[in-house]
């Protein structure tokens, strides 16, 4: 059995790698996406446009505003002198944040009354709005504490000492780039496996395969294993780029990562084979791959946390291989997770892999019989 399967694997790899179009699909878009995703997909705040409406120009207000100027997250784009301009700047998106220092700011500070600073934020992007408020609160709190210390007003009864494990600078690239390993591995593996049978059907060479002495199982293996190989290779390239180019810390050993990767690629291959055995034309296969890919990426926790989704969607994500692999890849990269800790992720992946292969085998036999 094995020599025949091996021959088929070699033929599949040759068919994929010798066609310039397929070669480009394997190399060009993934690298382009790695760069664009890696740099473009950021949740960090950089140069957010800020307008300052200082109704009480004084040493105290200048000190407060200087702290905003000093933060790389903010960039002061305008100084306002009229209350009517506040909303206009927000509405036209020239400023995301307007800092409105109250008329009695210094007087209240010295008189031990709460000195007011109003922060007007554009809520059209609610995530940015929340982050802007968080950053600003931090700056204003620091100002308050320094002012108290300088003016002997007594310390606050307790301060909050915030720390983040695994990612102390809270750099969102460390979260996104390991996610790209999962994303691109899935896209490439699915396209390779999902279109392989349909391409032979369209070209008419599938019938030739059927009249060889190989059984359906051997054909299935010959179609699936090249996908696994290419997926593993693609993932390795992206992991290298994540470590060497994006400098994401890889804290765990490689064994739990590659065990997870193998199970993940096997599961995606199984699903690709299912699509492949159902589709008659390449267009159908493409549509099928796409219909699987979009929900599986959206509901994987790649960009938005699964814990925020409604319960029934959370339950449905259990069958999504990418969801489990994301936990593995981020766990190994940032938390240094071990094989034992990742066991709850391995077995659902193995189940999906085994289940999809069985269904694909059954569909395949029915279609070829």
């Amino acid at each position, binding site marked *: 059995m094995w020599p025949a399967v091996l021959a088929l694997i070699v033929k599949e790899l040759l068919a994929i790698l010798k066609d310039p*179009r397929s070669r480009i699909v394997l190399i060009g878009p993934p690298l382009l*996406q790695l760069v664009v995703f890696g*740099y473009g997909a*950021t949740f*960090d*705040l*950089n140069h*957010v446009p800020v307008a300052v409406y200082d109704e009480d120009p004084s040493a105290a207000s200048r000190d*407060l505003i200087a702290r905003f100027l000093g933060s790389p997250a903010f960039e002061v784009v305008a100084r306002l002198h009229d209350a009517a301009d506040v909303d206009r700047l927000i*509405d*036209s*998106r020239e400023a*995301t944040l307007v800092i409105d220092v109250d008329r009695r700011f210094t007087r209240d*500070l010295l008189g031990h009354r709460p*000195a*007011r600073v*109003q922060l007007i*934020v*554009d*809520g*059209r*992007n*609610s*995530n940015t*709005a929340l*982050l802007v408020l*968080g950053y600003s*609160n*931090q700056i*204003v*709190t620091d100002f*308050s*504490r320094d*002012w*108290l210390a300088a003016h002997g007003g007594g*310390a*606050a*009864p*307790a*301060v*909050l*000492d*915030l*720390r*983040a*494990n*695994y*990612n102390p600078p*809270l750099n*969102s690239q460390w979260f996104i780039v390991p996610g790209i390993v999962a994303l691109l591995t899935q896209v490439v593996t699915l396209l390779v496996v999902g279109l392989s049978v349909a391409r032979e059907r369209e070209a008419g060479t599938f019938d030739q395969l059927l009249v060889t002495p190989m059984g359906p199982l051997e054909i299935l293996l010959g179609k699936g294993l090249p996908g696994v190989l290419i997926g593993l290779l693609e993932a390795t390239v992206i992991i290298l780029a994540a470590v060497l180019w994006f400098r994401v810390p890889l804290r765990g050993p490689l064994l739990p990562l590659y065990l997870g990767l193998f199970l993940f690629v096997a599961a995606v291959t199984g699903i690709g084979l299912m699509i492949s055995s159902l589709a008659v034309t*390449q*267009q159908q296969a*493409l549509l099928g791959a796409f219909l699987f890919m979009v*929900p599986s990426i*959206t509901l994987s926790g790649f*960009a*938005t*946390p699964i814990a*925020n989704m409604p319960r029934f969607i959370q339950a449905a994500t259990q069958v999504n291989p990418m969801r489990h692999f994301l936990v593995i890849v981020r766990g190994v990269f940032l*938390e240094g997770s071990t094989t034992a800790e990742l066991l709850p992720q391995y077995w659902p992946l193995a189940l999906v892999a085994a289940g999809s292969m069985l269904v694909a085998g059954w569909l395949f036999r029915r279609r070829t019989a």
Partner: protein
Amino acid sequence: MSAAGVRLTALLRKEALQIMRDPSALAIAFALPAFLLFIFGYGVTLDAKEVPLGVVVERPSADTAAFEGKLRQSPYFETTEYRDFAAAERALEAHEINGIVWLREDFSRRMRSSRGATIGAILNGVDANSARIVEGYLQQAWAAWLADAARPGGPGAALPVAVAPRIRFNPEVRSRDYLIPGLIALVMTLTGALLTALVIAREWERGTQEALMVTRATLREILLAKLLPYFVLGLGGMAASVILAVTLFRVPFHGSAWALLVTSSLFLLAALGMGLLISTAARNQFVAGQIAIIATFLPAFILSGFVFDIGSMPAPIRAVTHVVAARYFVTILQTLFLAGDLWSVLLPNALALALMAALFLGVARLRARKRLD
């Protein structure tokens, strides 16, 4: 009717019949947007609610109870108590909780000392964005507690500066309200490009493009006949998406219907023009489909400002976003839904869309030739 009119009507009839007889076009126009919007609408949210939080209280007192009360009152936290820090740390490592708030043994005593107490807060920082948002919620709870502690007879002094946030357009900061208008732009980019990307490539593959060429129909008529039916389909899909957003997901719509109609028409022309361009260039359904997904869906997902803020991207990537049509439409839709007809936003973005539509359609017209080579 003039001869040109007759030819155009005949071609339009042919395209309409083709759409009606092949359910896949109707599926792409109506079923796909509804399906995608449904999945995204439920699946994509950045609001953290009921974040599991461990609270370590080493020596319970009235002061620790007051602080814990603030955490418990917050709708954002689901607190679990731990007796010692080590147990909480194990739970954090096992992903049972997302963060620990640590009130040490000497909390009450140090609160009344001149140096003040320190409340330790340790978060799992793997998901940096969520961690930041949780930090913000923790600070809110702390500020609320501080305000209570500073009341007359309380143990502490208030912070001298009071921050009053005012969030325009989305006061409840519901992430769904900003994500869903962006999703509509994303979904329409995809359907718009998929609809037209395959149509001319299909004629080439089936050999019917040659048949079309030998008719007396001019190239402009052929392209127009391809464009119009899909334009109408696209508007239908757009209407379905907006209705779904307003009724099912309860996103407020503050703009006017006609502003929506005009801007969506401009966007659809740009998206369909892009599809036509791909279609005339590719001549092959497989390649056309690939390009349509890679050149439209992914940029619209990452570079449109739909989830990731464009202002925070590095300058070279920010420059690239200017050629993504979805970028302008996302801005328009977020403004129309959440703010209303703000012309200072709508006009420049609509103008950019009109330019892109003219460019794509013009290039598609130039590239398409009545030749076989």
